[in-house]
């Protein structure tokens, strides 16, 4: 399939927009959380300032750090950027959509996680090891649930390509699918766990012993830390956009016209802003759960995704 050059440019632009706006989404979530907690919030662009500050700072490496530790920030960021390129943000049917399907997307996410966990072990501190082992426990439970959700969508659209699936969903109009209700709930729980948000992980904590994601990256500093933080923000946005795209696809541009693209930008902004409000409310109302409750939480997510798949087979395929 040949795409015109403008489509490639647009795809590139969309990916750039994706990775550039990821910190903004995190800044927004922080503002929402602050509002729910009755306190003054940092400005919306604070995450950009933080990244800028970290990029300017020099890197301090542990004596035991190997090439793996140094390479990981780049690998992780690259994996997240590639994953972001696959996801339609403002328009579907762009050339980058053909690069990979959702299963590869899950693979990109796993690749990033794998390297961060290795880096956590690499420097040999206790907190890195604790963080890595916890991260692997969480992801080993979250990944099957995520795949189950992906399968439900793929079966509905008869394609594992995200863009094709979205196109199908848009064309079939507003249909209330029981399978999607289950899957949406399950995928949201997976998203919370995988992006290290409350109640599974507390991104704001300073307590080393309670950390999951922060524990693995405790030894990172300067430019390396900036890359990892940025990658985490992109990862968080990937999950948010996935949920918005699949369960509320309306508004995204299907043709390359200025009007449609503008409406695509507005639609995704509104959708993400609302999702962030939901997340902020949940995060402010809940304490972090005990670590041994996390498997129960993710088992529930898996169960919901499985129910989604089953209800698709039982209720929707037969029709």
């Amino acid at each position, binding site marked *: 399939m040949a795409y015109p050059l403008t489509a490639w440019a647009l795809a590139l632009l969309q990916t750039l927009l994706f990775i550039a706006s990821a910190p903004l989404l995190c800044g927004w979530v922080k503002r929402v*959380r602050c509002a*729910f*907690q*009755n*306190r003054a919030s940092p400005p919306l662009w604070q995450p950009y300032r933080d990244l800028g500050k970290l990029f300017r700072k020099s890197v301090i490496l542990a004596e035991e750090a190997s090439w793996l530790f140094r390479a990981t920030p780049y690998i992780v960021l690259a994996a997240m950027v590639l994953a972001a390129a696959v996801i339609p943000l403002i328009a579907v049917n762009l050339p980058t959509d053909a690069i990979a399907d959702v299963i590869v997307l899950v693979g990109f996410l796993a690749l990033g996680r794998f390297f961060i966990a290795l880096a956590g072990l690499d420097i040999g501190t*206790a907190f890195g*090891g*604790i963080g890595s082992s916890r991260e692997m426990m969480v992801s080993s439970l979250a990944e099957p649930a995520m795949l189950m959700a992906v399968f439900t969508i793929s079966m509905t659209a008869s394609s594992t390509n995200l863009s094709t699936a979205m196109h199908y969903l848009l064309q079939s109009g507003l249909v209330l699918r029981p399978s999607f209700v289950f899957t949406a709930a399950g995928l949201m729980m997976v998203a919370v766990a995988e992006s290290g948000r*409350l*109640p599974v992980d*507390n991104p*704001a*904590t*300073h*307590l*080393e*012993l*309670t950390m999951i994601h922060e524990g693995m990256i405790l030894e990172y500093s300067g430019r390396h830390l900036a890359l990892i933080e940025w990658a985490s923000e992109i990862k968080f946005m990937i999950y948010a956009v996935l949920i918005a795209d699949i369960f509320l696809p309306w508004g995204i541009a299907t043709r390359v016209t200025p009007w449609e693209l503008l409406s695509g930008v507005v639609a995704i902004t509104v959708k993400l802003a609302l999702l962030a409000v939901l997340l902020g409310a949940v995060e*402010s*109302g*809940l*304490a*972090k*759960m*005990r*670590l*041994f*409750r996390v498997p129960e939480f993710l088992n529930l997510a898996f169960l919901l995704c499985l129910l989604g798949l089953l209800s698709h087979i039982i209720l929707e395929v037969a029709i």
Partner: protein
Amino acid sequence: MMEPSVWAVDFAAQFREKVVAFRRSSPSIQAPCYRFSVMPEEWGGVAAEAARAGLRWSGLWAEDQNNRIDLTVVLEKDGVYLLVQTRTADDSPSIASHGLYYPAADRSERRLADLFGIAFRDQADSRRWIRHQAWTELETPLRKTYPRSGRDETSTRADSGYPFLGAQGTGVCEIPVGPIHAGIIEPGHFRFQAVGEMILNLEARLGYVHKGIEKIAEGRDPEGLARLAGRVSGDATVAHTWAACMAMEHAAGIEISTRALALRAILAERERIINHLGDIGAICGDVGFAFGQYQFGRLRERCLRLNAELFGHRLMMDTIVPGGVYSDLPSEGGHRLLEEGIELRQELEELSVILDENPSLQDRWSTTGILTTEAARMLGVLGYVARASGVDFDVRRDAPYAPYDTLKVHVPVAMEGDVAARVRVRQEEIDVALDLIDELVSVLPAGSCRMPWSVPASDAEGLGCVEGWRGEHLTYVRFGPDNTIARFYPRDPSVLNWPALERLIIGNIVPDFPVCNKSLNGSYSGHDL
């Protein structure tokens, strides 16, 4: 009412043959307090008999008397304090350990071994404790021969080679935490042995903030000692200063005006409130419940600002001075305190509903870090840690000192001994403190708030015992010639509360350690001195 002193007389009678002196030691030592001396060979027997009689072990200190060491142990039962003393025979003293009967004595004895060179016989644990590498095994900093200025060293050697307990087996891993932590807290090292996330054993290593408080106290004047006592542990500055001033005033035989006493109690209750507010917030924060953290932090900040306005210092440092309080309450102060009490109660009522009805929060706190009543008694823990484990003791009620002797102090107690119980007890203690402040303010006596100081006789000694926000503070002071301090020992409640952490954490998971630690909140500085 039963004469509360009966057991003390009976107890002393067992040592009649060997007792050197037995007297009701008033006024030099606090009123419901007895003391007697025994020969050093009876020292172990004292602990055996005390344990049999169900006495609580409360504190131990020593003093160098011309190369012979005076040891004093404080025991308590039913609000009556008993001081048992002995003097070792020669300058390389060896004496029986109390650790066999009182696990609480362990660290205090190891401390004395490090600072005085006393050898305790039959000690369960004879590793160094307060001594890191700043002085050698042969040096004894608290003996009179050691220079008060310390040794002239540009740097102190790092502490290494401390023989931690080990654990072996498949899947057992060791997690060293600290002494420097990520938050703004004091330094302390914690060594975990864990299988997966389950904690098998925890060993604390303290002493990183040993400042030589006892040594630098020597030679100070009373006001200088009060200021030093206020810096033993910054969060308990009022309690420490009050206990030190009480000890000095007992020694000097000074009666404090009723107004000064009421003001001291107001300060102490406000200290209780700000620390409880801050800690409940921090306990919320440690389980990721930011809302609670910020709300309680906000309330604490309000109290701190009113403190600055009324008492001249946010933490009320140096407000208590020998002879009374530094400055009187401003004329509108009483009204402001009552007003704040009303608002604080309203806000706390709303917040406590939010905390109580949040299942995710209660899930984290309930059954986490349980300290059984049995363990609490055995370790002799104090304050809210004891009261949350069903040990019903509060100096303000059980050995009341003025002005609490005329007040009715309600003491909240819980039986569960978990984090939730400690939070609940502390919530209720805020209410009690607010009620006490209301009462104290509304009947605040007139008069001066500072008595002139009278120079105590050389060798005059005094004991101060105060219920601070952490629990019972015990401070011993002995004067030397010319109004100078010869010996100062403040026993912070943390000394007895820290070992409880090692016990209550067993069987919990590693990520629950911070919240367990915060629910106990021992003072590193108060312990290390």
